[in-house]
């Protein structure tokens, strides 16, 4: 067998699988979104129809807020863990990265355990102030859920790039008289910008597409994924569900592509 035909044979099963079960369906999705009774209007409805527009804005705001807070939290914790050696450090790192593969539904349940009707926070607050605090089903609960699944993803990337920083640069800055804060502001943080962009984009894309957490918490805020699900199952509005999916997919894909061209490393969202 010639080299070319053997390599082709190795590649063929992948091309068939991905072609049949990904490329073709995605084209169908694009077409169905455009083939609604009112033509391309299913696509324009994403921005013209108040209900969809509001959901789009709410999801964008939630995802951006999640990304900013997650990157900040991960940077503080990551710098600390990478710069200090103390007993229990390895366990702490394991705890911070363990929830990496928890599905969104389980994350939602973790928030219910934390802030639901029988939650830890509610019990603590009743013992201390007599008032039972329940936040799991509010925007606060949803936001904490998004932080819960974002922190492990981001912290890994940021810790890896902190490890790669050149300590000589910091020493040089310090020998020139820069204080701790100045070293961080002028040397450490600028060097971490590519990691911020890469991990921030993954975080943003994952938050935009997240479905399980909102589903479990049945929050009153309609994130885009929940609207798509409702349109499809309850309203049987397949064209609208398709066009919203295409819009959502486009946003996450552009975010990741932009991040990759800015940060220059391979970036992908998962989960």
């Amino acid at each position: 067998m010639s080299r070319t035909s053997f390599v082709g044979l190795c590649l063929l099963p992948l091309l068939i699988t991905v072609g049949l079960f990904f490329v073709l369906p995605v084209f169908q999705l694009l077409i169905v979104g455009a083939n609604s009774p009112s033509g391309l209007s299913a696509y324009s409805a994403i921005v013209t129809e108040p209900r969809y527009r509001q959901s789009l804005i709410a999801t964008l705001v939630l995802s951006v807020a999640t990304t900013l807070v997650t990157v900040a939290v991960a940077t503080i914790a990551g710098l600390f863990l990478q710069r200090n050696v103390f007993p229990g450090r390895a366990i702490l790192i394991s705890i911070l990265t363990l929830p990496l593969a928890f599905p969104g539904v389980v994350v939602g349940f973790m928030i219910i355990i934390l802030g639901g009707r029988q939650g830890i926070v509610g019990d603590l607050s009743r013992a201390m102030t007599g008032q039972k605090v329940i936040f799991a089903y509010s925007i606060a609960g949803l936001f904490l859920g998004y932080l819960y699944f974002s922190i492990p993803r981001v912290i890994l990337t940021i810790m890896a790039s902190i490890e790669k920083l050149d300590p000589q640069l910091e020493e040089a800055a310090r020998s020139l008289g820069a204080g701790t804060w100045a070293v961080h502001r002028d040397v450490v943080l600028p060097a971490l910008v590519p990691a911020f962009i890469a991990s921030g984009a993954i975080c943003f894309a994952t938050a935009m597409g997240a479905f399980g957490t909102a589903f479990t918490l049945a929050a009153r805020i309609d994130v885009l994924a929940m609207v798509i699900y409702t349109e499809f199952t309850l309203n049987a509005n397949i064209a609208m569900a398709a066009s919203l999916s295409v819009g959502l997919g486009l946003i996450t894909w552009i975010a990741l592509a932009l991040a990759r061209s800015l940060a220059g490393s391979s970036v992908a969202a998962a989960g």
Partner: protein
Amino acid sequence: MPRKLSFTLQFSFTILVALFLILPAIMSMLAGITTNYARGVSSGLTASWIIEVWNLYADTIVRSLVLAFTTLVCTLLVGVPAAYALHTIGGRIARLIEEVITLPLAIPGLAIALALIITYGGSGSFRQSSAFILVGHVVFTMPFMVRSVMAVLGSIDVSTLEEGAASLGASRWQRFITVVVPNVRPGILAGSLMVVTLSLGEFNLTWMLHTPLTKTLPVGLADSYASMRLEIASAYTLVFFVMIVPLLVAMQIMGQKQSRSSKS
């Protein structure tokens, strides 16, 4: 700021974040073996919730295990040869194909599921079977296997190894099986762990693709969170943790080994 105060502040912050992540997991595991969670652990420990979960949801647990294993077999059979082919071809075409197969990671699972339903939803028996979910899982996990194997291929000199085998008279197929595959074992192992972990926990796609007769573990979890008492939901989550945490720990250990060997 004095060094000691700064250390204490950062330490407390990191502990707080760790508590936020681990405390609910511990409490939920505890709730799964507590007689009455509202009255606390003092009401006694019991295995009856776990037995109840087994009675109610055994089929979802078995189905998820079978699905994860089948997904793994598919990604191995399709993904490993493809990674080798993409590595050999190289250049723009290989990059383009890699780009396309990685797209399922950049597009929300809900959208992919919807695309599959629109395209194949009409074919009754396929739509009704677990194979419909399998297809989604394979598309979603394939990039992890392909990239993981390609990463190892990029770090070893395959062509020299292959030339050596060829000079001894090995056919292309023999070379692939006896030279390439053993050399990319770390990539296959890392990819396999990832594929099984992701398949076991996949919800976004599966929720759309499942039927009442093809519920998986995460689908059952969502079900129990909505309709069961906290103890049963917790016991069910505990079963899920027992399945998934060893895989996560294995991945962490592999990651540490890799970063250590790349440093030395």
